[in-house]
């Protein structure tokens, strides 16, 4: 394998891995704050993609410009999901928790099929298109913009969690729910916030993907599986861990797919999940 091909696949893996990281940051945030795995996370991404697609198809607004709107929209969806469903099962058994987010997943997919048909759709000729040539290497501009956008969004979340008072309150809620409540932190509002931000992360990732990835009702299925792998690898609840794990998973997927065949890449990534949870259950940077 020549150096060019190696670099090309490696960097392509990093670019898509940054998007995986952003999806996983949302998932790990929800998990960290309230110990619930959101099986409907891929559907937040799907809704973000559809929001971008329709704004482009109906009003010719480019996904890159409507991104803030998509983020706000998905924040509202996430907060609404918390208030209507999750709030009621926060003390329920793990089985009830798993199944309520599973129910949301099925419901959102059904609604998307019903409202927007099961067809594959795509955003064509957006401002973000074409390729960029760097010497012997070539990258799609949409992929580069998506990678850069994902870094920006992840950094923003990191800054919010580590450098603001509300973020500190959120981290405190994650560390110890009861203690946080005793300190006067409105934990219910923190949970709503976690779901809002978590959904917004997936929504932004969806918007970034929409310029180069087909939009369809089941699009979230593979992304949520990959996000589980990233979250496990990074350590459940760790945002920094999710960021680096996302890049690793992206590289494993693209380089592995190149070496053993792209049709096997999902199996490879899922195998990585099994290896991680069995050999290093706390992940790379997780709390033990």
């Amino acid at each position, binding site marked *: 394998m020549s150096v060019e091909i190696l670099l090309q696949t490696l960097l392509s893996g990093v670019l898509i891995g940054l998007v995986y990281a952003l999806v996983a940051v949302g998932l790990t945030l929800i998990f960290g704050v309230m110990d619930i795995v959101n099986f409907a996370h891929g559907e937040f991404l799907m809704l973000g993609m559809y929001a971008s697609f329709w704004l482009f198809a109906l009003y010719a607004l480019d996904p890159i410009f409507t991104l803030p709107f998509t983020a706000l929209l998905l924040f509202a969806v996430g907060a609404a999901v918390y208030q209507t469903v999750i709030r009621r099962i926060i003390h*329920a058994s793990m*089985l009830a928790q798993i199944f309520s987010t599973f*129910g949301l997943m*099925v419901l959102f997919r*059904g609604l998307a*099929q019903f409202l927007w048909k099961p067809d594959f759709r795509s955003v064509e000729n957006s401002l973000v298109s074409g390729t960029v040539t760097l010497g012997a290497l070539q990258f799609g501009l949409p992929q580069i913009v998506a990678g850069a956008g994902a870094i920006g969004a992840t950094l923003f979340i990191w800054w919010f969690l580590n450098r603001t008072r509300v973020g500190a309150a959120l981290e405190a809620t994650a560390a110890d729910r009861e203690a946080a409540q005793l300190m006067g932190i409105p934990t219910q509002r923190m949970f709503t916030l976690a779901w809002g931000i978590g959904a917004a992360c997936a929504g932004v990732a969806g918007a970034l993907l929409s310029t180069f990835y087909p939009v369809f009702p089941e699009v979230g299925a593979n992304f949520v599986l990959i996000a*589980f792998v990233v979250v496990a690898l990074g350590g459940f609840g760790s945002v920094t861990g999710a960021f680096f794990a996302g890049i690793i998973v992206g590289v494993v997927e693209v380089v592995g797919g190149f070496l053993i065949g792209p*049709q096997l890449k999902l199996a490879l990534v899922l195998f990585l999940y099994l290896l991680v949870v069995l050999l290093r259950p706390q992940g790379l940077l997780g709390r033990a």
Partner: protein
Amino acid sequence: MIKRINPFLVVFAAACAAPLVVTNPSHQNFLILVMMSAQLGVAWNILGGYAGQVSFGHAAFFGIGAYTSTLLLIQFGVSPWIGMVAGGTVAMIFALLIGWPCFKLKGHYFAIATIAVAEILQVVFTNWTSVGSAVGLSLPMQQEGLKAFVFNASKLPYYYIALGLLIGTVLAARTIERSFLGHYFRAIKDEPEAARSVGVNLTRYKLVAISVSSFLTAAGGTLYAQKELFIDPASVMATSLSVKIALASILGGVGSLFGPVIGAGILTSIEEVTRQIFGGSGRGTDLILYGLIILVVAVYYPNGVVGGIKAWGERLAGREPGSGSGR
């Protein structure tokens, strides 16, 4: 007191006689589907309900059952009846190999691991040319009859085979429920630390649960292959199938003997009704209904229909509803 009539026998007699009343072939087919999904639900419940190990990967066992008997038939002309036992055995060995490391994992981690295993298996089968890859396998044409496990003129024999398999599975679940295994499984589910501290080997009993559950699920896979006479990874190994299998229990009542049967009846009815009213599953209406039902059950009736009825009955009797241990 009036001498009690065993309700099992009443249900059994009704089930045996049902095809005499229901003569329309498409209605009979509906009954077969209910029996088949009920059987899978009861089998899932042994691991997911009694032992509390939630699996979203049971399609792997189902697919192994379907593929083993079908490949034995195509390659070596082995009778599907033997194939059914062979498929169950292969699924059991696979389950033990997977379960041994994965039972270390708790809760979500285990559930996600089961999805990962089943998805990996589906990817492998989709790309494995000697087992038909994505194209799938068609079963060879054969003289119909009980020996060949093929019935063309009337689908009724499938009904009785499905019923027999369901009864066998229910009896297995009932035997486990009432034996020392049932106590151990409940202990593993509700108080794993306490069980461990009194010397119960958690992994060993989880392995027992997954062995029985996977064997019976694989048997259901062989029945499916013989009834449809065609299998491919998308129809016998998909995660959506795993979810459907788990759903029957969740809906009916996790850890209750007949919960999955009731759940399967409700789910299959929803599927058929939406298909007839809205035509096909591509419109998403079946998914919307599914999703809403799962949500309502998970949020308001975490112990399923059976748990809901029990709590209701207790309230009527003027007692506090049970705290709902899942039984």
